């Protein structure tokens, strides 16, 4: 990968983090939703970094990772959710 491609991937991860939780500042510390969003972001970044590292290492996926993948895919593909 070139430096520009790596920069683009890094920016994509940063953009996903922003998409996951930029309203924390708008809600204020008293909002419970802010805590939930903060937790989502705190989980997302290490997860993405971990996935990219495993991709670079060519590591075989575990059963737990496959189950997590299928669970997320089921959420994303649920037509009853908003």
């Amino acid at each position, binding site marked *: 990968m070139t430096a520009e491609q790596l920069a683009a991937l890094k920016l994509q991860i940063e953009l996903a983090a922003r998409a996951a939780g930029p309203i924390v500042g708008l809600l204020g510390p008293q909002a419970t939703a802010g805590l939930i969003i903060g937790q989502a972001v705190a989980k*997302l970044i290490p997860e993405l970094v971990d996935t990219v590292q495993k991709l670079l290492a060519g590591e075989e996926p575990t059963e737990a990772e496959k189950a997590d993948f299928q669970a*997320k895919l089921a959420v994303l593909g649920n037509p009853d959710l908003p």
Partner: protein
Amino acid sequence: MKKLFLLPLLALALLVPGCASFSTNTFRAEQTAVNLAHGAYVGWTNYLAEFPVSAERSNAVKVARLKFAATAGTVEALRASYETNNQVRPTLEATLLTLADQSSNIVWLVTFFKEGAPAKSYVLVTNVYRMERK
């Protein structure tokens, strides 16, 4: 433009050297795309719980999400086929590129609807990437 933004994922899947199989690299690229899309979607649902959103915007995210999931299902099916028939590899690569595109689309849509406009740095890097590809 958005497609170019996630090309590094595909490049990772196709060009990572070493002994890892193409199928494993494909799964990791899928996993990254799903994590990105899922993270953005969690943020979107939290946003929906706090702020009013027009039906048009809500529907746009939903359509993008369902298209992404359908494409991810196709990639998984092709990946399973690839285990016994390597002739599907070009189709699998093309579908994986579409998946990366749609993941980027969800992230972009959610960010756009919540913040009003994409960040300047996003446009800048995308343009740099586009120039490099020409």
